[in-house]
């Protein structure tokens, strides 16, 4: 299966660590990742409410290129994942929209027939590659590291996807198989606030604080996430939250590919660990497996 990589803008900038660790994980598992040629913005912006057809066309350009390359699109950012799937579904279900969008694409010498499937790397790694195969490649064991897996709201909703919409367990199963201990974390699909952190800062801070609080109360060593926005909100605002609410959060936030890549033996550089603000002490991280 050919996997077409759609990084999205945040993985090129603020979520560089996600991009690096994802590529490292795929390489270590021997899976090829082919970046979509000349990809553009996915459309997860407010423009969808301003000029809908134009927004869909911009989004669909990526799908048209992917279709011509052949393969399944892998989109790590939850927002890109949601919007590309939304574009795909609307174009499939509304022929009028599809013909308008294709008219626009035509001017770029492209056409979208509707055959692309967009997957999330968590889904691909656990359901296509499989935990058994991953375990065959592991070099390090998590040795009881206490993990709070945070899915966020856009990974399993609104589309009917690869996991339960209220109680997903893909990351829980993956990391417990790799030796981690999953803490009780009922807020794992609660919204972190997303863009509200900028527009309604109070609301955003409160929502993020609750997630951090739940992780802390259950003594999690690290919160693991799949979305650059969630990662940013959870990590970068801990100081502000501490000031506002009198809390004392110092919780490391890792991308799931960083933790997975670590078990597969990737180096700190390959995992982009230097981009994490809050350090996770190496002693907590577990130990190397004995050479087999």
């Amino acid at each position, binding site marked *: 299966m050919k996997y077409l990589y759609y990084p999205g803008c945040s993985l090129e900038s603020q979520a560089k660590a996600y991009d690096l660790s994802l590529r490292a994980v795929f390489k270590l598992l021997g899976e090829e990742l082919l970046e979509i040629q000349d990809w553009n913005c996915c459309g997860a912006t407010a423009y969808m409410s301003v000029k809908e057809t134009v927004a869909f066309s911009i989004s669909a350009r990526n799908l048209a290129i992917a279709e011509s390359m052949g393969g399944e699109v892998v989109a790590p950012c939850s927002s890109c994942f949601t919007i590309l799937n939304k574009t795909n579904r609307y174009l499939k279900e509304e022929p009028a929209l599809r013909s308008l969008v294709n008219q626009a694409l035509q001017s770029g010498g492209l056409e979208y027939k509707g055959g692309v499937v967009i997957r999330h790397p968590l889904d691909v790694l656990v359901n296509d590659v499989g935990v058994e195969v991953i375990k065959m490649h592991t070099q390090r064991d998590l040795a009881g590291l206490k993990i709070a897996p945070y899915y966020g709201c856009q990974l399993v909703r609104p589309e009917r996807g690869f996991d339960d919409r*209220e109680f997903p367990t893909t990351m829980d199963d993956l990391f417990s198989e790799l030796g981690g201990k999953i803490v009780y974390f*009922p807020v794992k699909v609660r919204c972190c606030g997303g863009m509200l952190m900028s527009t309604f800062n109070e609301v955003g801070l409160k929502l993020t604080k609750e997630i951090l609080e739940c992780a802390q109360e*259950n003594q999690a060593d690290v919160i693991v996430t799949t979305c650059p926005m969630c990662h940013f909100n959870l990590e970068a605002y801990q100081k502000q939250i501490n000031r506002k609410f009198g809390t004392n959060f110092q919780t490391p936030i890792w991308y799931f590919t960083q933790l997975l890549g670590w078990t597969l033996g990737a180096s700190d550089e390959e995992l982009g660990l230097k981009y994490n603000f809050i350090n996770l002490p190496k002693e907590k991280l577990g130990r190397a497996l004995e050479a087999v």
Partner: protein
Amino acid sequence: MNPKIGVYICHCGTNIAATVDVEEVVDFISKQPNVTVARNYLFMCSQPGQDMIQRDIEKWKLDRVVVAACSPQMHELTFRRACEEGGLNRYLFQMANIREHCSWIHDDRAQATEKARAIVNAAVRRVAWQEPLEVSHVKINPHTMVVGGGIAGIHAALEIAESGNHVYLVEKESTIGGHMAQFDKTFPTLDCAACILTPKMVSVGHRKNIHLLTLSEVEKVKGFVGNFTVTVRTKARYVNDKCTVCGACVKACPVEVPSWFDEMQGKRTAIYKAFPQAVPNIFVIDKEEIPPCIEACPIRQEAAGYVALIRDKKFKEAAQLIRLRNPLPEVCGRVCYHPCETECNRGYVDQPLAIQHLKRFALDWARKNKVEIKPPKIEKREEKVAIIGSGPAGLACAHDLAVKGYQVSVFERHSTLGGMLALGIPAYRLPRNLLNEEIEYLEKLGIAFRTNVSLGKTTNLEQLKRQGYKAVFLAIGAYSGVSLGVKGEDSNGVYYGVGFLRRVNLGIRTPLGKKVAVIGGGNTALDAARTALRLGAERVAILYRRTRAEMPASPLEIEDAEAEGVAIHYLIAPTKITRTSPVSLQMTCVNMELGEPDASGRRRPIPVPGSEHNLEFDNIIVAISQRPEMEVLSDQNGKPLFAITPWGTLQVDQDSLVTNLEGVFAGGDVVLGPSTVIASMGLGRRAAESIDKFLNRQPLVNFKTHMPKPIVPRGETFRPHRYSPMYKDLPRQKRIEMRKLDPDKRAKDFSEVELGFSVEEALQEASRCLNCGVCVECLECVKVCDPGAIEHDMSDSVQEIQVGQMLLATGFDLFDAQVMSQYGHGKLDNVLSSLEFERMLSATGGTGGKILCQNGKPPRAIAIIHCVGSRDENHHKYCSRVCCMYSLKYAHLVKDRTQAEVYQFYIDMRAYGKGFEEFYKRVLHEGSNIIRGKVAEVVESGWSNKEEGHLIVRCEDTLIGKFREIPVDMVILCNALEPRQDAARMRQLFSISLSPDGFFLERHPKLDPTATMTDGVFIAGCCQGPKDIPDTVAQAASAAARILAFIQKAEVELDPIVAQVQEELCSGCRMCNSVCPYLAISFDEEKKVSVINQALCKGCGTCVATCPANAIIGKGFTNQQIFSEIEGVLV
């Protein structure tokens, strides 16, 4: 011909006239040929409108009428009647639809008018070709069937029965009452549901003309209005009406499952009554299916029953239950090949139950604790029966016949009794003292045993007849060892397996050297090998021609043999035996390899060329198979007395086991070939029933003794019974292994190798039983039932009932709230569905009416969430109508019985009925918090799940515009009312339709809500749509009134718009027979033409179109009529 047509264009107020220029249409149509008069009027269906038509018919001598107005669905009947009253045959009328088909769907006036002209013209052209038709009548059977015993069905049945007519009330559960019986109080009056319902239920039970059929479902419906034939299947209740409802059986029953009446919150035993006030007031046994262990047993021993009793520490009762049906229990407990374990459903989870070891445990315990099992009382008869052979088949037959009272004599040719039990099976598997105890018990039944009597030598069939034996059962077994067919087989020192074992068991000196070979792979070979060890042989080897996988011997036997030091060699067979010295034999062998499968399905062994080699032994035992001894079955000259099968066994009738000689029956190994103890016992039992019939001069048919039916394998997604998790979800438990004597020490003598379960081991193993099918037939209920009301062998009954009309009142199902996982039903404690809360409130529920959380404490705050599954785009779009009111009821009752704070989360408050608004105000005054907003989710409070927390309801309070998180101890969901799961099947059975939301479709939502499109079939209650009790009762009464009206009229009109076969054109091809969706067409064999039942025919026209000879006309839809209508549109 020159018809005189009157045309009337209706304005229908503004419905038509606003879009269609009616004047213009009148103008146009009046100029058409044959139109005598054309008018328009505001409301043609009104009195003046109809009068207009009637006056014109008289004045202008009209012989055809067209009304252009609404849909024929609305008023075709109205205008037909109007014409008829005006003196014109009603079928000389045609309706043109210019409302639903024209004015309501178009905006453009010019185009609509043009279309209306075409429609009216078409009707005018058509009506000219219409012929007068006569309505026919059918008689109505005055009996009625009501399907569904809830409040709707009960009320309708009582109303109809009041008139003296007969009603059949068919209910699928074991009691009537429906969902209403589950309620505590009802809104808005807070009447206790049971108080108003149970008197009606009692009336239903008492009235002689209401025939109550519970545990019953409709299987087939044939016929037409006034003349239905309904096939109803009534499931066995297993308890008859001698039941006094004392409840002793409930105390004795060892099986408990969740109670459906309590919405799976409480438990009830396998024998139970759904609720205390059930009607009929009789218990019922929940037997979903016969447990596979019982089905698989050739003597139908209640394995599941005694396992359940052992689990309950009732060891004495377990032993008694075993002995009841098993004449050789000690034997079976040790040597049976246990088909019950092979079929045990526990095998889908981990390993089958050790049923045999548990049986042995119960009997060992009974023996140790000196439990006396008395023989039953026997009424003696004078007929004598002779049984030849004292093996398992003979003993089982003797037992059953003796219990029936016959004078039984068992003739055994050896000096020891028991057949293969004594002469074949070694004592280390079956201790001889136990076998003797079995025989002693049989002697207590009056069976006479005569040893050293041999058929064919010291007695024969003639002699037995002269001695007065009226029937003979031949159970002589299969004692002749099959030969290898190799040279030297008859040398000294070569034994046959059966013969070898017989000698040893009879105590005859059996010389045996140190090196012994045993040829064969069955149990006889294993027994011979292990016996040889115990006789002092130092090296014993089994040589088998296939591999271990194909060895027929039981795997545990093979393991035991290997543990004792027997060497097993595979893929090897002898080709020649030569005596090389007075004490040793040389066996020439070849190696084998496996080729294609043979007739038995096992791969055929093929000699490997060039692999011959010699082996030295002191003795060789050949144990490859056994056959019945032919000399016994032949006369002095060697001619066989009986029919023999190609395999050398005795031929008998499969069902009656009778041979070709009258009065002579046979069973056991002589019929089956080398088989098993239990299979032989099964045939012995069947033979006893057969001989009993024979001696009573009854035909040898309709046998009741059990013959195991093949059991279809299931997968791990099945479940042992409907209340149990699936096999794959049950926790795994290891099977308790039987402890054995140390292998090194035990091969020295014939002491019993298996040691038996301890009490702890037995209890642990018995706890693994899954109670497949719920009732395990332990028969404890039978023991304690004084009136003798329990009949475990009751079977379902099917009857055909003739009725004239049917009322469906099948009720609703509750939406499964687990689908909305954000509310936590099924995951979080203290989240209840509406019916679960009703059961908690009810005095007959689990808490006796107290409102308590799972931890036993009363709640401090309760949330009630409206519209769970209703008014929801993702689930049901409709409103369930009753939830707002019962939520208020809950609020009131909670306030009444606890100190809890009440929060209600609603979208709109619907309190539309009589007394509802008053109730609403009262509840508001009592102080409930009513919050307008849909609940987003119900979560556990606190972040860490260490503390015992409460629940938090997260919602939006839209009236104050705030997001709220409200802590509560209990959440009650208002689940939507849905159509029954089997609504689709029901509607097919009764030929009615469903509305888009799945409820039964009424004929007209306003004017006829309790009739359906199918004449003679009515609906009432929630099966038509969600509603409360007052509306349900009203609908039931309305349907009953309609039914009674038809009964009173005693006949119903049949529409003559039907198809008719023109016999002279029919070629008898019968193509029409198979296309009729109403099964109205049959074939007249004498006249060789197809015939259409005018009562069943609905005039759909399918047969008309199908007939290749154009022999069928559709009355009212002839070709001429249709073509002229088309012309009218186009012209």
